[in-house]
């Protein structure tokens, strides 16, 4: 705003805005599809570093083919997630299962999912530690350093440090985290290209034998079926068991649903692009890297020495001078360290998102949703998840195979529930979906989802086999799932009691007092600006129309409401309690913005005159358009009259277009 000599003091009272409060929450930022893909890939593609070793220990060198098979299956599962996101903005396991199968099964499914997320962090960070320690132990003799770091506890120490680093980043907020994921995937892509090219050259030069297709299950991998004849008499059981031991390669897909909320408009098309990128990248990197490792690294050293850092082993056996191989191994470890650390980040982010969904739904008490006073994140949930992950890291004592086997329980059972729920919703929910899993057969008026049924059949078979062949996973998974389910059930009962006592469950917001309207939103940078004035949480039609019609990439949208200054107090800079009416209003504003993937800037102006508040905000923020909803009590042109007066009363007002929107109609004038 211009700094000029103030006009003579007007007689009587002043109606100008008194205080400006900027409403913030960490969840109002949106990311492009390639950053969303990077967030998911930091989990899914990171499995390239450990799935090969874990699967081969269980089923022999045929693991290569089963890993390829699992990664092809990832495409089918990604299609299921696309369908669930086309139905719900927050279309993860919990929401979808709840809609289809009810609250109890939804809690069971999300308990399994939480077990998945809890283990993603430890397996990724411990694996990163294994690679790092392995590299250091190889390099030290060459550098004439007499260190020998104990592999197990050394990897545990590094794992804890990595976890704590990303704990801090997540407390700060998602925007920071997705940027990091993007940088990590850039480095991983470079590493992957070199790995593929150099491995291809090595295979071409030396020739190779195709890995066997016959799965040879180790005693450990037979689990409770050890000693039984079933595996030998029923051949497909071995295939299922082998498939199950390779299922780790699919971890991270659920993050697609969590990250969908943050994807910018157009949402579903962007998610499709992200899904294609995720599946292709994982298949090429994980599949080919594992193949190359089996084909290049000799059998007698591959699993005995490099089971927990297979790609390091691959780097050491490529064709070329030792110095180059050591340098490349260092780069592989560096990239691995970064992407595996990124998976830790994704695990924290994903589990935080899941717990937020539960809290919004009243499963978790309000305490869990308490916002960080500075960053506005749900730091308590983040803290609990990280604490459990650190505990699991220490308990594992650096055993990647143990972590991997336990991990698969949560991965597969959350998928089972998800696909089952999406299938049931085909029969229960008949609204048109923007995307559906293909292979549907119409029989009369009934449509049979053969595609979904096929995917579900595979998952159930593999999940059932896993229960029998992975003892540690079954026991620990069942215990954790039961534990989470118990926690969620108790918490939900406590919340039900509060709801009966009249407490409403709403989005959480932080508030920041701004000294003046002009200083309220320093981040407005786009060339076009629209101010949408809202009042009624049940009527956000004007905001919806704006989100549907403006170019969200070139337009800043400020959503303001004005309340009477009397009776509203802010204590200090960032405290103060928002009234329920404003919470409801801004919760609905936020939900609408999420649906369209548009960034909005909420603003609360304390003033004795809403028209003045709108006029002053519009002038201070240099908007080109002011959008209002129609009043139920006065004619739209009368509504604009007051705004015309207050606009004229400002100092040096620039022309502005005022639009009143209602029920498909519009009245607009330029003042």
């Amino acid at each position: 705003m211009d700094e000029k000599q103030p006009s003579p003091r007007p007689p009587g009272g002043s109606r100008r805005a008194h205080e400006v409060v900027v409403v913030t929450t960490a969840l109002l930022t949106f990311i492009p599809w390639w950053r969303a893909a990077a967030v998911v890939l930091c989990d899914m593609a990171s499995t390239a570093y450990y799935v090969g070793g874990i699967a081969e220990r269980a089923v022999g060198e045929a693991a290569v083919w089963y890993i390829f098979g699992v990664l092809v299956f990832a495409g089918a599962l990604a299609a299921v997630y696309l369908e669930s996101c086309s139905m719900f903005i927050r279309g993860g396991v919990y929401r979808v299962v709840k809609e289809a199968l009810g609250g109890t099964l939804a809690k069971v499914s999300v308990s399994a999912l939480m077990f998945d997320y809890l283990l993603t962090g430890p397996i990724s960070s411990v694996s990163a530690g294994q690679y790092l320690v392995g590299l250091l132990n190889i390099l030290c003799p060459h550098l004439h350093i007499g260190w020998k770091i104990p592999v197990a506890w050394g990897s545990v120490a590094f794992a804890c440090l990595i976890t704590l680093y990303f704990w801090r980043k997540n407390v700060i907020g998602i925007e920071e985290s997705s940027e990091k994921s993007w940088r990590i995937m850039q480095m991983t892509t470079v590493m992957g290209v070199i790995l593929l090219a150099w491995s291809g050259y090595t295979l071409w030069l030396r020739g190779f034998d195709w890995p066997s297709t016959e799965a040879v299950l180790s005693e450990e991998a037979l689990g409770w079926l050890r000693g039984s004849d079933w595996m030998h008499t029923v051949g497909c059981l071995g295939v299922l068991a082998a498939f199950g031991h390779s299922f780790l390669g699919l971890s991270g897909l659920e993050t697609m649903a969590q990250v969908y909320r943050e994807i910018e408009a157009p949402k579903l098309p962007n998610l499709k692009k992200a899904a294609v990128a995720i599946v292709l990248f994982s298949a090429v990197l994980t599949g080919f890297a594992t193949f190359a490792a089996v084909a290049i690294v000799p059998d007698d050293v591959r699993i005995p020495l490099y089971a927990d850092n297979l790609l390091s082993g691959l780097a050491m056996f490529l064709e070329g001078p030792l110095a180059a191989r050591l340098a490349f191994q260092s780069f592989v470890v560096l990239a691995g360290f970064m992407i595996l650390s990124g998976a830790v980040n994704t695990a924290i982010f994903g589990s935080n998102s899941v717990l937020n969904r539960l809290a919004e739904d009243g499963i978790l008490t309000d305490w869990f949703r308490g916002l960080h006073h500075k960053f506005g994140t749900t730091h308590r949930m983040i803290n609990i998840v990280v604490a459990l992950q650190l505990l699991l890291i220490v308990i594992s004592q650096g055993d990647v195979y143990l972590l991997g086997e336990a991990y698969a329980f949560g991965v597969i059972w959350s998928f089972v529930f998800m696909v089952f729920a999406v299938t049931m919703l085909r029969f229960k929910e008949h609204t048109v979906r923007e995307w559906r899993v293909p292979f549907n057969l119409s029989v009369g008026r009934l449509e049979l989802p053969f595609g979904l049924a096929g995917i579900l059949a595979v998952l159930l078979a593999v999940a059932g086999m896993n229960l029998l062949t992975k003892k540690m996973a079954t026991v620990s998974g069942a215990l954790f799932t039961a534990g989470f389910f118990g926690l969620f059930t108790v918490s939900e009962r406590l919340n039900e009691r509060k709801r009966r006592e009249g407490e409403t469950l709403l989005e959480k917001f932080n508030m920041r007092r701004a000294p003046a309207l002009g200083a309220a939103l320093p981040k407005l940078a786009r060339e076009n600006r629209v101010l949408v004035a809202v009042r009624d949480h049940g009527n956000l039609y004007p905001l919806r129309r704006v989100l549907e019609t403006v170019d969200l990439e070139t337009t800043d949208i400020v959503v303001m409401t004005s309340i009477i200054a009397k009776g509203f107090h802010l204590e200090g800079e960032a405290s103060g309690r928002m009234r329920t009416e404003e919470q409801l209003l801004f919760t609905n504003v936020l939900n609408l913005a999420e649906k369209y993937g548009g960034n909005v800037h909420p603003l609360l102006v304390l003033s004795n005159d809403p028209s003045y508040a709108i006029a002053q905000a519009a002038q201070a923020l240099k908007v080109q358009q002011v959008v209002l909803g129609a009043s139920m009590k006065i004619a739209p042109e009368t509504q604009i009259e007051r705004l015309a007066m207050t606009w004229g009363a400002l100092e040096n007002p620039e022309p502005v277009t005022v639009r009143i929107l209602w029920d498909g109609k519009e009245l607009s004038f330029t003042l």
Partner: protein
Amino acid sequence: MAPKDTPPVSPKRVPPVVLGKLIDPTLVVFFDGGPAKNDAIKDLVGRLVAAKNLGPADLFLAKVMEREAGPSTTLDTGLCIPHARVQGLQEVTAALGLFHPEIADPLQPDLSIRCMFLFLSPDDPKFIPVNLQVLRRIAQVFQPAFIEKLHAAKTPQKVFDLIQQKDG
């Protein structure tokens, strides 16, 4: 419930409004003694209707008071802008009142009125943008400093001259 009176969409720009052309010196009134706001409105409407030979004053007064029952026409600059759209009028026409001492707005006791710019305009959708520009321009021109100058002018002719200079 749908909003009342839904006129057609009209996003057009209008030519600038010139306040000096809406008023003449015979329709500038000094109110000494602090009359009630509604009495001042009645007085200005009567003078305006008589001067322009518009017809029965009661009809116009009723329209203005009907509008006064809606969103406030008083600003915190000491300005009040009573107005109405009336069938049969062909153009915008206005009268000005200056109050010494200032008077209170009974509906908003914290605001006081030093100047009242009353205008009547045709009740025609084509005039809605003109109406808005008139309101905007009046509020823009009649800021506290300018209202002080008008009060210091002492005669209707001098008030009219000042308005002409400011926005003629």
